[in-house]
């Protein structure tokens, strides 16, 4: 007569969201930017993504196994893939394969799993990997190709594969002949040698308001980022304060000395700023938890990026700025606990 039931705790209807779906949506949002990247820099980008993903998944599986965690379940959350893709997008298209391997080793093994795995990493793994290879392989990391429309790429698919696998320049070519400094690099060298920004901007690497090609890639990243905002995967605080602080500070610097400071537009549309604002600084694990904290975090990344670009030793500063703010995140969180109901 009486029927017995298993019990459980409220709420009794489970969450339908999952970490995997969050990560998958981040990957989808990157698609337009990645395609734009390919459009201007050739198939090398896809090669880098493929390589980094393979290494990331392999290392993730190995680490999960070592740590006696369910391997398949761990891989299904797609977090390693997101790290790999974000990392690969920062590499020059023809970077040799060991760069991806080194980067992914530091990202997945050191920055992620040695700190406790998913959800426990203090630093953004992709940026740790990137900064390590930037410091270890400075030569390879500056060998960017000039932006060009499809068909006029200087290096084709097969040459790219050969180059990535061998580590040397494509057959019959020299690095000097095909590689080109990035717009930010050009700007930096130019300013350091006493040229005005207007003079520097006459160089062919510059486009309408940022770097040639780069500005359009940034737009497509922004489009993906807006989609993430609309899907509420990321919150507006970090992108807005990060780009906002760069624009504001850049504007001040530009008005103060237009000769040695580029316009804020130049800052926003070159390098990794837009990618960073929507996809990297918004990493929840290594960022701030509260909305007020996120405002501070985003502004911090923006300001530090500008400071590094202007006075630091590297042309772009997004990665370093993100890592520094990662360090500050727990402290910011401590001082930005929201006032709870009734207090």
């Amino acid at each position, binding site marked *: *007569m*009486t*029927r*017995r*039931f*298993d*019990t*459980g*705790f*409220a*709420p*009794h*209807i*489970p*969450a*339908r*969201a*999952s*970490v*995997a*779906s*969050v990560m998958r949506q981040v990957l989808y949002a990157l698609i337009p930017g990645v395609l734009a990247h390919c459009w201007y820099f050739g198939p090398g980008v896809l090669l880098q993504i493929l390589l980094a993903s393979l290494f990331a998944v392999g290392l993730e599986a190995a680490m999960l196994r070592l740590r006696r965690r369910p391997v398949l*379940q761990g891989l299904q*959350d797609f*977090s390693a893939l997101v790290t790999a893709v974000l990392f690969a997008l920062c590499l020059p298209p023809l970077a040799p394969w060991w760069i991806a391997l080194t980067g992914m080793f530091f990202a997945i093994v050191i920055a992620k799993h040695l700190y*406790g*795995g*998913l*959800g*426990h990493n203090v630093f953004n793994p992709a940026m740790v990997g990137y900064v390590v290879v930037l410091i270890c392989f400075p030569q390879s990391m500056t060998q960017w190709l000039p932006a060009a429309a499809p068909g006029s790429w200087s290096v084709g698919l097969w040459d790219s594969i050969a180059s990535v696998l061998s580590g040397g320049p494509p057959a019959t070519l020299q690095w000097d002949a095909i590689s080109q400094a990035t717009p930010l690099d050009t700007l930096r060298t130019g300013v350091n040698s006493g040229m005005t920004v207007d003079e520097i901007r006459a160089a062919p690497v510059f486009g309408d308001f940022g770097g040639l090609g780069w500005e359009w890639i940034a737009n497509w990243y922004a489009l993906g980022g807006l989609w993430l905002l609309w899907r*509420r*995967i990321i*919150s507006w605080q970090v992108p807005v304060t990060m780009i906002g602080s760069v624009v504001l500070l850049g504007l001040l610097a530009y008005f103060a000395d237009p000769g040695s400071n580029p316009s804020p537009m130049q800052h926003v549309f070159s390098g990794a700023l837009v990618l960073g604002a929507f996809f990297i600084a918004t990493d*929840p*694990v290594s*960022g701030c*938890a*509260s*909305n007020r904290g996120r405002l501070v975090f985003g502004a911090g990344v923006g300001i530090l990026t500008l400071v590094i670009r202007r006075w630091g030793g590297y042309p772009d500063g997004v990665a370093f700025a993100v890592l520094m703010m990662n360090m500050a995140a727990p402290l910011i*969180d401590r001082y930005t*606990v*929201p*006032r*709870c*109901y*009734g*207090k």
Partner: protein
Amino acid sequence: MRLPAREQAELAGQRLYHFHGGLRLRHNKEVSCRSPLRRSRLPPRLYVPLLQHAGEPASALVVPGQLVLKGEAIARFEQPVAGFLHAPTSGSIAAIARHAISHPSGQEGLAVIIRPDGRDQWCALQPVVDWQTAEPITLRQKIGEAGIVGLGGAVFPTSAKLSDAHDKTIHTLIINGAECEPWISCDEMLMREQAARVIAGAAILQRATEARQTLIAIEDQMGEAGERLQAALDAFQANSRHDGRNASGQEQIRMVKVTTIYPEGGERQLIQVLTGLEVPAGQRPTDLGLLCQNVATAAAVADAILEGKPLVERVVTITGSGVHQPANLLALLGTPISDLIEQCGGYRQDAARLLLGGPMMGYALSSDANPMIKAANCVLVLNHADIAAEHPELPCIRCGECARVCPSILLPQQLQWDIRNGLLADASAHGLDACIECGCCDFVCPSQIPLTQWFRFGKAQWQQQLQEQSAATLARQRFEARELRLAAADQQRQQKLAQKRQSLKERRSRQPGDET
């Protein structure tokens, strides 16, 4: 410009505000609203738990074999205020024995088991003859005698709440018809089918608290219930004007429609929507001059005052994907849930979980032998597909969704972290006590962390730690006082000894002189 809290509270309902977070859930209410409200049949046995309100269990006033009439007091409780449990029907007392009692803990407890005689005969009832002119205190006493408790779920004795409200001179009575949890439709059906009772109860409650105005808050999606309630309200007001009895301010009853968003029916959330104010931590709505009562409580009050009937039955929603014919029943307290389910076509094949309350805040019962209690607004049967988690639990990725939906503006991820690591003082500093356990954070967590469960655990642990701390402090104070006392006594003794020695010495030095 911001008004002082109490003054702003007086403007309740004049415009609507928002509370933080919340969820728009699929409410699934229509399935149980298709058939009209009907009375449940008399079961072969009624099991009336002695513990079905906040506080200690009641003590039985009857013995096995005794005959009782419907509405006769069968048990009396003292905490938090004195009150009674009443026989839900006429018959004989079969036993007072341990039985399943629909308690959240899942434990058994004493229940008065009644064998109905089938006549369902009321005892002598004493309505309050002319409530419009009755003293508020008389009304409150009568409500207390009728065993009425908050039927929205808190089951706190209504008379105690009313006295508190009267002591603090409230200005606004809020009748809460914003039944926000999915599946539950008992309040909606009550307002639809017995609107006049609800309105009468609201008017009586207003007189009992001497509030200046009454707001009946319903959800904007309750179309028909809203219309019927408005019609009943208009009729009531026309009537009282006709009688020339609007001195007690019944003109001031208004209906307010609020947006459907979970957990809007929470007392503190509803107050925020109606006034824009948060009830300060450690205070009660009455401190702002507000009192909330559920619509079902209002209906029960109407029965108690107009007909003298104590609380022996309530509307309960029997629903869920695991029930064949969901419906709302007017069921006697003590009716076994199995009996109610049977009257609704029985279980579907894949019925997997039996809940008392809604899917967000209700609790699971281990068997359908559990009886109807005053707090039971809904019996929900979910199937496997409803309750099955699609993903395993993963570590928190700090995405912040939980903080976005939290109506108490907490950082659930931070609280969870504190509690997991035993940092209960930190959790408390982060506002653990403000958590209303609505389950919104659980519902959006991509890592499937049972956050609410952690918070319940953390609260219990923190309470225990506080008790231990205060016990330790007390023990230390006692010990210190004892040491001080002993030291003082010792010192006194030493002083006396010294005095004695001194006087002895003096005497000795005098004595030889005396002898010479």
